[in-house]
């Protein structure tokens, strides 16, 4: 188990190197997915290697001349990576227009990062439950299929798509089993380790990742956890950024244990399965408009974050909810407030941590999280 976890950790530690390694090893073209809802299955079906473009944990230098300091760390970091030439090995970046910040950044990168091979914006409906959203999504996904076919210089058949959907669904189910195990045996795996696993999945072929997950899950099934008096909590937030892992570390260090999450590098990445009984394109479009986790950047008023997290907390027997907001994420600010207003009647303790690319003093985060845990413990 330790060995596998270390391997995941190594893969997650250097996202770009990992992607480059797979590019060399498989000889496949790499598609970089930026923003929230790029349909990876389509590129996978064309024999391409989709990887998620992640925030990089290094100081932002070049991007300062193009992007204000009062923009979220994700786009500042991605712009910086693009300007530094770090993303030049990617054959095509697909940038989903999930907020105006990403929208404008895509154009800034296009304009200034001369080494970028290809950067293609896409738009998916924001109001996901309307009739016209559905047709629009289908059109946009068809466009993505064309794009993938051009990149791969081959056509994608329905069978190709279905096989990819199956591979991805299998992957989603394995990760869900991992989460089930964590709920059943709190502390069996640390929040950072889970984060490493999901992050690795964003960077490597799903088949390979599945092959690593299966023995890990088996080892976890057979492992027992000693009884402890840690306070079970769930963590929500960090929409397109990696949740600053030190927050998770501190949380578990001061007596909390993460039993479930609603994080981007976490359950949001694999929560929505694609229906294998439908025609593949329809199923993919449906998966988008019927996404399971409520998304602060989408408009789906019946899918409330407060209900979603209350259910998650109940299912995991969590005693508190931590929200992690990336500073300057406008959509998330509103969504957090609506969530906060929505859970008032449930009497479950919640706390907000706001993170920044440049980092927030760990001492302050610690005081807050420790106080939160102390207050639950009473």
């Amino acid at each position, binding site marked *: 188990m330790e060995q596998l976890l270390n391997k995941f950790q190594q893969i997650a530690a250097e996202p770009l190197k990992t992607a480059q390694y797979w590019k060399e090893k498989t000889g496949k073209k790499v598609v970089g997915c930026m923003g929230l809802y790029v349909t990876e299955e389509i590129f996978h079906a064309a024999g391409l290697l989709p990887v998620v473009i992640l925030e990089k944990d290094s100081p932002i230098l070049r991007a300062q001349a193009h992007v204000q300091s009062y*923009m979220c760390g994700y786009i500042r970091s991605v712009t910086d990576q693009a300007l530094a030439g770090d993303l030049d090995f990617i054959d095509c970046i697909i940038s989903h227009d999930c907020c105006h910040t990403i929208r404008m950044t895509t154009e800034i990168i296009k304009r200034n990062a001369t080494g970028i091979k290809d950067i293609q914006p896409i738009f998916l409906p924001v109001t996901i439950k309307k009739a016209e959203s559905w047709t629009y999504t289908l059109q946009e996904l068809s466009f993505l299929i064309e794009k993938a076919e051009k990149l791969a210089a081959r056509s994608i058949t329905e069978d190709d798509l279905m096989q990819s959907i199956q591979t991805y669904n299998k992957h989603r189910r394995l990760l869900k089993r991992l989460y089930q195990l964590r709920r059943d045996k709190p502390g069996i795996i640390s929040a950072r380790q889970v984060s490493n696993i999901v992050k690795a999945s964003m960077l490597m072929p799903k088949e390979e990742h599945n092959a690593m997950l299966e023995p890990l899950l088996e080892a976890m099934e057979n492992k027992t956890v000693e009884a402890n008096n840690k306070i079970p909590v769930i963590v929500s937030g960090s929409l397109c950024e990696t949740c600053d892992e030190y927050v998770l570390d501190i949380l578990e260090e001061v007596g909390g244990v993460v039993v479930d999450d609603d994080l981007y590098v976490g359950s949001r990445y694999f929560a929505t399965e694609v229906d294998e009984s439908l025609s593949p394109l329809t199923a993919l479009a449906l998966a988008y408009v019927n996404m399971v986790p409520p998304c602060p950047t989408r408009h789906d008023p019946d899918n409330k974050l407060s209900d979603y997290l209350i259910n998650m907390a109940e299912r995991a027997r969590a005693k508190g909810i931590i929200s992690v907001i990336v500073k300057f994420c406008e959509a998330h*600010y509103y969504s957090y407030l609506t969530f906060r207003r929505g859970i008032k009647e449930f009497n479950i303790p919640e706390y907000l941590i706001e993170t920044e690319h440049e980092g927030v003093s760990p001492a302050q985060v610690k005081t807050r999280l420790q106080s939160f845990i102390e207050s639950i413990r009473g």
Partner: protein
Amino acid sequence: MSNEKKIVNRVKCTANISGLMDNFYKDMFDDNKGPLCWCVGACPYEMFSAANVRRFQTENHAARISTRQEQAMFIEVAEAEGLSENVCSYAKINIGFALMMARGEEDKIPERYRLPKPDMIFALNTCPTMIQWCDMLSDIFKVPKFVVDAAYIYDENNWDRNVEYVKSQLYDFVRFLEKHTGQPFDWARLNEIVYLMKQIAVEWRAARELCKNVPTPASFLDALIAMGPKNTVRDEASLAFYKDFHNEVAQRAKDGIGVLEQEKYRIMWRGNFPWHKLGTLSRMLAKYDAVLISGVYGLGTYGDHAIDNILPDGFDLSDPLRTIAAEHCCRSYTRRFDWKMDHEFRRHIEEFSIDAVIIHSPRTCRPWALTTYDMAREVEEKYKLPVLVLEVDHTDPNYFHDAQVETRIKALLETIKK
């Protein structure tokens, strides 16, 4: 540095704006004029008139509060509720206002800003904030809402399908309006108002083009003050006002009357405007004989695109919903950044004898702020003009410090070689 106060010769008829807007807001209390909708963002107001629904724009209301520098109280209420200080300051003002109303604290709100509670909320997401803001209001007042999703046109080849996408939602909105008013939608009235908008756009555009004259007969600040009726009222009285405005500006141009006694520096403004510092900025610039000539903000509003043939369809009175949809698809936020940079911004720099450019990068508006650094670079490199990126805010008072801003503006003017 002289400290004498310079005279700013404003376009006289803008003095009527305050009365026009006061009346507009007074109408919100008139129950005979249909249910009340609070509109978030740039909305198809003509549709409301055709449905006999009262409506006002929440941003306009927030800006109105800010011009008298009375916004801080509302911002504090919103932030105390838990809304981040980094959220759009218009939204903070309006949500704070809404919270106070919902809590029955109306007596704390200065009378001139008071409004009835909404019967419905509408938003069109020219920026993502609109939708969340709309949800927030609907949650606070427990009233129905309607949201129109304006697609992002990243490729001009997608134009048609995007306009149709918006138009089909506008049809649904007609049904929504009919349901909530219990009355049939007045299509003839809609046509009338769309036609009215075309006439307003013509007057407005003509007046603004006259600012190419040296000295300029009107300033950007005159235009900002004059923008209210066009952006939110849109009725016959508005057209009358813009005719007056155009006539007065034309007369001034003919007589060679400028805004300043001595017009030394012609500055172009880009971005939305710090409403709470309208007077301060006007005086600050006048002190150095500088005048804001024009700005892209407020120009890219309804109608301009059509008469400028940017809108491929132009004004199509046989299909007013498509015209409205196309108009909203034309907004700078909904189309590509290089397009946005290309057109009006460059044209103004080239045609209005500009000496320097001020680009506003608002701290709480990411859509306006992003790309400003690149724009500044282009202006410097391509047009060899000095640029100031002013990082303040459209209404949040915490980011504007007179002394700091003045230093920056003075430094900008010092780099102009004359």
